[in-house]
């Protein structure tokens, strides 16, 4: 069933919508959740939450890209869930590693401007990602949106892990410069 037909089922309030969504995107959303949560039980709960959210948001919404729409919802729920429990069970996990990597994007004597609203920051990040070359963009999103490991990204790209690591470092340095130039960082008080 194509995405438009699935969305139509939601608009018709047919419970078949969720069955079709699960069939087509269940594994995808579980991967998105699992990359963040690294726990099967929590990932399953997250996917369940996503189906409920999809059910409640359509009608009203009619997403053009259903997979990305669902993935965004799953990611939001997973990020909210991960802070509720310790991620140290598996040595921190990819999310914690990604956070540590991004910590370097804000210079040590700066912090992100608290006055910048989340929506404005999101638009700025979107613009930044647009500026990246295509390959770098794919790898940046794979790492910091999907939390795929460097090894997994390297396998998909057919290159060494060190190359991926170097590309991500380059992207983060660009992000650091961008945040400063756009005035999104403020000097920390002494």
């Amino acid at each position: 069933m194509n995405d438009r037909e699935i969305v139509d089922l939601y608009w018709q309030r047919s419970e078949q919508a969720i069955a079709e969504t699960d069939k087509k995107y269940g594994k995808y959303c579980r991967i998105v959740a699992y990359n963040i949560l690294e726990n099967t039980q929590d990932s399953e709960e997250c996917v369940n939450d996503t189906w409920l959210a999809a059910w409640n948001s359509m009608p009203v919404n009619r997403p053009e890209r259903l997979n990305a729409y669902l993935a965004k919802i799953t990611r939001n729920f997973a990020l909210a869930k991960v802070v509720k429990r310790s991620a140290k069970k598996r040595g921190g996990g990819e999310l914690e590693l990604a956070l540590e990597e991004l910590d370097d994007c804000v210079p040590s004597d700066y912090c992100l401007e608290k006055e910048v609203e989340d929506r404005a920051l999101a638009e700025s990040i979107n613009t930044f990602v647009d500026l990246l070359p295509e390959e770098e963009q794919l790898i940046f999103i794979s790492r910091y949106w999907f939390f795929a490991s460097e090894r997994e990204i390297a396998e998909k790209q057919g290159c060494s892990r060190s190359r991926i690591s170097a590309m991500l470092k380059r992207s983060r340095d660009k992000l650091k410069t961008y945040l400063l130039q756009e005035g999104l960082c403020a000097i920390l008080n002494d």
Partner: protein
Amino acid sequence: MRDSERLIKAMGELDEGKIEKASRFLGYVKGPGKTARSRRRARRILILAAVIALILSLGITAYAVYSHWSKGLEQHYHPTEEEIAAAESSGLSVNPEYENGKEAVSATASGVTITVQQTVMDGSFAHISLRIEGYALPEGKYPSVGYMEVTVGGEHFPMATGYFVEEYDEAGNLIFCGEDGGLEYVISAGGLDELNNFEGKEIQVVLQDLGIGDKAQHFTEVEGTWVLTWTMKASAEIKTATPGVEIGDTGVILEEVELTPLSVRVLYKTDGVWEGYETMEVFDLQPIGVRLLDGTVLQKVFGPGGKTGYTDLEACLLEIQSSADQILAPDQVEALIFARDYPWARELTEDELYIVPLS
């Protein structure tokens, strides 16, 4: 919130076209797109002919109380002795195979037997613990079920998910444990009002193909179909309230509350439509706990909202339903506690709590 957490959250709003392209690059979804290297995994989907169903009625009026909590449900709820006793007397927790004079709800195929060993159910959520015997999980692998379906009262129940119970041994290795060396699989279902109120309804659980999983990809090791059918027993306890008051100085009015042993549902009237609604971000005012009649404050009871959505956009009525991480006695709850700004991540101070009495 940490700066890198803000950046991660901001990334969430990336253009959907870019997200879709990256998901194809990673191989998470199929479709046109180029990857430098693709790996093909053989995946067998098998439809099986053998079906064994046992119908068991749980409508008995007197039975011996048998206290036996599965590891999975114990991990989930950490029940106290008092909660265990209360759960059994109210019908919240049932061990079908220990009901006097009744046969176990069980199915066998391909040498593997799956048995319903415990259910914990109220009017909102159902948790079903299954014991799996006769399947030898290969070492170092994650167990997986190829297909799972739940029907309630003859209707497909879409909001059902399952997971294998796991824990870490003394050496820090992840192990999948169950009774006597078997596996435990827990199914959780809930959230759709029109199919809830499980008491007295017939439920059928179908599991198909056991095997191993790798990041949600399934590889079948044992082909089989197990069908488990029985009449559900659930707790009917519920506390409802219509406070109609503002939650602190938030501008949000708490219109309705429904509290069951396993969940809470709140209905807010928001000041205008919340802008994060379209992508279902986490609404920044969440029920997190309760205050009991004896004054005890339980902060970390409810997790991030499992169901969030407007029931009436024009009237700005926003509903949030969350499951509880511990078993509640609704009649002992005096007030509901709310908090903002990712409250699950930290210990909250008193001035961060919004306490709303339910009387």
